[in-house]
């Protein structure tokens, strides 16, 4: 089958899976330790990142208007990040529809003084997803959604963000003129107003549960220096 192989060696995939396993183990232990402190919040769909894992690396991507978008742009807002690409016909439109449902579920629920919530699609296919293309794509779902793509040559900026979130993407092997597929992390990542990884919402995504968890997190959130 043409699409079956991955261009990245199996070794790298194995490393990433091990890394993910380590991260998940960390999340589990972190959740437990938080529980012991007695100030734990109960989430239905999401998992909190333990404090040690929260720091995000610096990155410099471009938004759909062509403007630079760095880690600092995440600060001051709540941000839901999903990795995907516009050539993906099934999972990505589904997740953007879930973004719309979360946004609709939260409308009027969040107190006005709360930091705004951004919905962000980060392209794992910068070769085909130019800022213009992302704009056209996202305008269809919701013009307020933010689309980010890496205009640097080696995708180092994108890799910086995915690595620091423990996210993965990998392009399928393909013939020169053939459309290709990209595997990518399916989770929705919550970045807090201090630009730190705060929680992960794994699949299956249920918009009502995610919206409820977001309200819980936002209402219990206290900015700190840790």
């Amino acid at each position, binding site marked *: 089958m043409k699409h079956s192989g991955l261009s990245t060696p199996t070794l790298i995939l194995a490393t990433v899976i091990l890394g993910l396993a380590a991260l998940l183990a960390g999340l589990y232990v972190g959740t437990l330790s938080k529980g012991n402190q007695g100030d734990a919040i109960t989430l239905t769909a999401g998992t909190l990142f333990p404090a040690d894992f929260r720091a995000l690396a610096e990155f410099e991507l471009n938004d759909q208007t062509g403007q630079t978008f760095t880690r600092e742009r995440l600060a001051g807002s709540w941000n839901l990040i999903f990795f995907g690409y516009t050539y993906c016909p099934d999972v990505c439109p589904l997740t953007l529809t879930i973004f719309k449902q979360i946004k609709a579920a939260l409308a009027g629920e969040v107190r006005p003084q709360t930091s705004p919530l951004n919905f962000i699609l980060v392209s794992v296919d910068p070769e085909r997803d130019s800022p213009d293309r992302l704009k056209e794509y996202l305008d269809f779902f919701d013009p307020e959604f933010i689309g980010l793509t890496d205009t640097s040559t080696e995708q180092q900026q994108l890799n910086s963000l995915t690595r620091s979130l423990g996210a993965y993407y990998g392009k399928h092997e393909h013939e020169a003129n053939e*459309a290709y597929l990209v595997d990518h992390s399916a989770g929705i990542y919550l970045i807090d107003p201090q630009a730190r990884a705060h929680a992960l919402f794994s699949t299956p995504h249920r918009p009502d549960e995610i919206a409820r968890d977001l309200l819980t997190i936002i209402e219990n959130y206290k900015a700190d220096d840790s």
Partner: protein
Amino acid sequence: MTLKRIFPLLLLVFINPSHAGEMLAFQNTYIIAAPPGVETMAAYLTVINSGKRDKKIVRIDSHQFESAEIHRSTVEAGVAKMEKLDILQVPANSMVELSPGGLHIMLIGPKQPVLPGEFVILRLEEADGTEHNLAVKVIFTAMDRKEHEHH
């Protein structure tokens, strides 16, 4: 009921031969509209095989697209993957559901923009050469579909 009304029904009964139950049936067909410029779309449907023999769909195409493939989305260890299937198996006495986030027909390279409310003609071919032509409606989003179901 007048004879005029019954007559077409009688015709249907006579035209559909006794092995009608052996034919594949298709339900719940839809395509979710894609943003402009998008090169791939997904078609969803439920295939029902109420017959006693296993069936295989071996080819799908549409004159409105460059090509069509059977794909399956899966999530393994938190990673969303897509794989191409050469054959869609529909075992005897069973139902196979193609739905968002799972099995789907990936439509590649629309020859013209395909808009909500329009129909896409899909041709599905079984291993024994039996063909099915389906007119599949393009709907706006999965959310719209749910709303339709509720009303």
